[in-house]
């Protein structure tokens, strides 16, 4: 048992369906200020310096520790540093515990800085191709990536673009880079201290920065080291008494886990959108440890072998 504020069943269902949870302005300003101070000043653009050189200097001098992949997350950051303080916030620690269980493992982190046009003299200022991190990942288990926005991000600054609901697609990194825009894509526009928790499969990319200042985002990827099953606030999980009527319904159904899981995304294709529902149910079975769970009869129908 833990005293941390764990995610509710509704939040977990939303993460299962859409692959993200967003917490706006939850990191106190003193931690944001400390983080930016630890990262150091970003040099002004110089005529004789390439963007790569400027970024290289920034990364070399920033107060981000080099941490070996596979380190316990609890030992990845020095006590009192801004990132450690952020990770120890009850809301953050509770969300991490809910999603990847106790004692998660540090995978990697990175200081993402996007530079305004002034730094791109002679080069091209473009957004990052949409991609899925790492490589083809056929697991049901998943990693979590926390995107930390230590300062306010405007639309002009090109905040992280991500496409809700893409996390269950088995793709190979930037092989999908051809897709410039996808219906329902979101761009992070947020106040300072905002956190975006992403399922490791969510398609995303950095936007082009057309503002006058740099944009900073710090990403941490973590892996479960123990079970991810039934780690959220189970007191909020309502027992499912029966299947809902499907297709022919006369009124808007009440809010429920099923309603969350069965809500499509704007980019869903008409046939594979149904496969998305099937895969969401499978992920919910995994997270709840209930191999019999179903929503809207998708798996019950498919698992009926008519052999009784």
């Amino acid at each position, binding site marked *: 048992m833990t005293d941390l504020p764990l995610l509710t069943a509704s939040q977990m269902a939303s993460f299962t369906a859409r692959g993200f949870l967003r917490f706006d302005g939850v990191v106190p300003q003193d931690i944001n200020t400390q983080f930016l101070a630890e990262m150091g000043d970003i040099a002004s653009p110089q005529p004789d310096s390439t963007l790569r050189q400027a970024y290289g200097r920034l990364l070399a001098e920033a107060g981000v520790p080099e941490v070996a992949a596979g380190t316990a997350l609890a030992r990845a950051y020095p006590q009192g540093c801004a990132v450690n303080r952020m990770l120890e916030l009850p809301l953050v620690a509770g969300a991490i515990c809910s999603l990847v269980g106790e004692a998660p493992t540090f995978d990697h982190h990175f200081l993402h800085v996007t530079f305004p046009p002034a730094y791109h003299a002679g080069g091209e200022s473009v957004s990052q191709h949409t991609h899925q991190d790492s490589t083809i990942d056929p697991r049901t288990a998943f990693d979590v990536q926390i995107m930390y926005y230590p300062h306010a991000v405007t639309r002009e600054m090109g905040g992280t673009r991500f496409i809700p609901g893409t996390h269950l697609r088995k793709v190979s990194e930037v092989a999908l880079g051809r897709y*410039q*825009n996808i219906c329902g894509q979101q761009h992070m526009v947020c106040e300072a201290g905002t956190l975006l928790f992403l399922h490791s499969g969510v398609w995303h*990319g950095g936007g082009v920065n057309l503002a006058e200042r740099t944009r900073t985002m710090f990403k941490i990827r973590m892996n479960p080291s123990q079970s991810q099953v039934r780690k959220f606030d189970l007191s909020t999980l309502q027992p499912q008494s029966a299947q809902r009527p499907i297709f022919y319904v006369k009124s808007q159904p009440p809010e429920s886990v099923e309603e969350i899981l069965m809500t499509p995304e*704007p980019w869903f*294709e008409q046939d594979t959108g149904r496969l998305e529902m099937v895969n969401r149910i499978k992920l919910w079975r995994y997270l709840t440890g209930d191999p019999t769970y179903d929503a809207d009869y998708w798996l019950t129908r498919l698992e009926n072998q008519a052999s009784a």
Partner: protein
Amino acid sequence: MIVANLARQSGTGTRQMTRQKVLVLYLANSALDAPTVAWAVYDGTGETRPMAGDTDTPPYRTGVDALKDGWRLFQASQILPHQRGAEFDVSYLKYEFFFERLVEVAA
């Protein structure tokens, strides 16, 4: 593309070249009149620089709407059978349609 390297004299004596603009639409099913769910534009004239995340609204509601506006379809994805054992796997967008428009630009 050979067509992109053509250069010739226009009626006014200005040297002209032909360049290709490419529109890629991803539709909700294999029908060309199905709704657009994703899209991309690539501009061989160099006049614009489309990129990821630059618009949130599809340029055309359906593939047929792109045809009506003069885009020429030159490739459509095949409808392939599902691999046994992987029937429920989802990966890349399935219904991809490539269109082109040839544009005259000054050489």
